[in-house]
């Protein structure tokens, strides 16, 4: 069995919903937006674990919780065997070196007033990892890693002088410069043009192999996840509805939501079967999620009261493939 890098247990993040003064007086209880509502997963060493879902399903919130950019409401996050949820920010600081993030939008994630050298040197300075002379050397090496060569040409440039692809390389470099063992990649290519997406992804995959990093890859694009992830978890309204290897999810989907997602993915092959829309409607608000199975109002195989009343547990159907649907929990 491979080593587990990060393990998440029953992670919850509820955001309080702000209401007006009178509403607060009248309300009998506080209202919460349940962005992430009890999820479990683990990422193994050198693995790319995909978290797939529509917008509002809670994938980014999960990513932010792992980095303690927001504090989870409850649950446990074990990083290399240690629960990092209860640590104070000060005691968490050494862990930040090991857990890094690459954000979605390289146009917003880089400080426009900092040169590339400053941007890449900042994490080193914050962690106190490089002496006077070493900083620039390390930055140069990282720039070479992300193929911004020759490095001297980029050191003193500002983000506005770079193209989108180059910016995302800088952001990737910033994520890797501390040699982390775990990276959260939050839609790292969705803002880039298709012709350069593959190049950035390739770069990331190469670096993962080189440094043995594990990745939590957050994306809405199932087709992309299928090609780069080892395992995939599908999220819907703050819950994981299905989890398995990329092949299991794509070729043997079990949950009706996963099936609907797969059916909706357009394929770049004009001779293949055209898309069929299996489900109606849109993802509901996570403030008042549907009772029981959260997917039941849109589900086409809803089997009755049990779906409306009882929340389905995530059950293992063998070979590490698990699904949260009453249809399958009934059989077993």
């Amino acid at each position, binding site marked *: 069995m491979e080593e587990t890098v990060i393990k998440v247990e029953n992670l919850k993040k509820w955001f309080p919903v702000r209401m007006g003064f009178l509403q607060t007086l009248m309300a009998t209880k506080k209202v919460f937006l349940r962005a992430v509502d009890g999820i479990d997963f683990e990422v193994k060493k050198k693995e790319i674990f995909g978290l797939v879902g*529509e*917008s509002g399903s809670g994938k980014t919130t999960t990513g932010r919780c792992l980095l303690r950019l927001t504090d989870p409401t409850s649950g446990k996050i074990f990083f290399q065997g240690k629960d990092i949820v209860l640590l104070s920010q000060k005691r968490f600081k050494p862990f930040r070196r090991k857990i890094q993030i690459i954000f979605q939008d390289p146009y917003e994630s880089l400080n426009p007033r900092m040169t590339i050298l400053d941007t890449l040197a900042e994490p080193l300075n914050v962690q106190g990892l490089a002496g006077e002379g070493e900083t620039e050397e390390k930055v140069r090496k990282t720039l070479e890693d992300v193929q911004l060569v020759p490095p001297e040409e980029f050191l003193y440039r500002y983000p506005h002088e770079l*193209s*989108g*692809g180059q910016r995302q390389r800088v952001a990737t470099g910033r994520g890797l410069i501390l040699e982390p063992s775990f990276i959260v990649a939050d839609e790292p290519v969705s803002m880039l*043009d*298709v*012709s*350069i*997406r*593959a*190049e950035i*992804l*390739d770069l990331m*995959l190469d670096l993962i192999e080189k440094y043995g990093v594990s990745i939590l890859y957050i994306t*809405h*694009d*199932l*087709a*992309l996840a*299928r*090609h780069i992830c080892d395992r995939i978890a599908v999220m819907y309204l703050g819950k994981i509805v299905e989890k398995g290897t*990329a*092949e299991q999810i*794509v070729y043997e989907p079990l949950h009706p939501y996963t099936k*609907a*997602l*797969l*059916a*909706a*993915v*357009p*394929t*770049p*092959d*004009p*001779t*293949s079967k*055209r*898309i069929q*829309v299996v*489900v*109606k409607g*849109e*993802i509901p608000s996570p403030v008042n999620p549907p009772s029981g199975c959260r997917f039941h109002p849109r589900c086409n195989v809803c089997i009755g009261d049990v779906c409306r009343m009882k929340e389905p547990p995530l059950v293992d159907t063998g070979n590490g493939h698990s699904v949260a649907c009453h249809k399958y929990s009934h059989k077993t």
Partner: protein
Amino acid sequence: MSKPTMLDVANLTTYYKISRGYVRAVENVSFQVKEREAMGLAGESGCGKTTIALSLLKILPHNGSIKSGHIFFRGLDLAQLDEYEMRQKIRWKKVSIVFQGAMNALNPVYNIGDQMIEAIMTHELETSKSKAEERSQKLLELVGLEPSRVNNYPHEFSGGMKQRAMIAMALACNPELIIGDEPGTALDVIVQAQVLKLIKELKEKLNLSVIMITHDLSIITETCDKIAIMYAGKIVEYGDIVTVFKEPLHPYTRALVQSFPDITAAKTRMKSIHGSPPDLLSPPTGCRFHPRCEYAMDICRKKEPPFLNVGHDHSVGCHLLSKA
């Protein structure tokens, strides 16, 4: 089999003037759209796809202008029409556009009904307000929304519903050609599939022609009959989608097709195109793709490749083919 041509764009050239010179956004672009046909216009951001759409309707921003070329719509050259004629004869009545609407194409301070009524009454001076109201409710029903939602404001709609409302608005004056400018982008996959299906159904039901503008080739394969691939202000390949996807001839098309992940295919590493698209203030000489092309020859740097017909509605602009 061969349908009559509805729209014939010939040598369209549109530039934007900025302080540093002219941005050559669209140069010498020619294509045809036949009756009841859907054509996809694909390319990366900044390649001029949206500029073509804006040129067809002549709603370019103040610094943009059509420098030369013709846009024949049923024989009438739109490039020669003035603003008044465009508004009275063409826009919305013949050609309308669905913007990438989920985010900000609707006015947040007017309700949906009023916005639709405004569109109808601007273009059809003779229609009364009550008739326009009635029609806006019918249109919402046509795109699968509750007619009573005419009184709702855009913030009360979800992304998919806003996009449906945008489509309803584009249909307000019974146009014959609809331009969809990234109609599925910024929507979730399931909602995107619903919207694309709606467009396909409406096309059949109302006998529309469609121009679908998108950077996502897979959306074009799902909805269109023909495809034009654009690169840096030029169309580099045009043909029916099966031919272009199965036997792409231009190196850019080939690379673009390969850079798309196919969910049904075995796990592979995607291929990419080295470098990035050029600055259109001073595009490369000769073939605009040559700096990123793996087959670039001497002639590519010097001479612009002619746009050759290589058989059955399939045209390519590449020296590799003109040589052979």
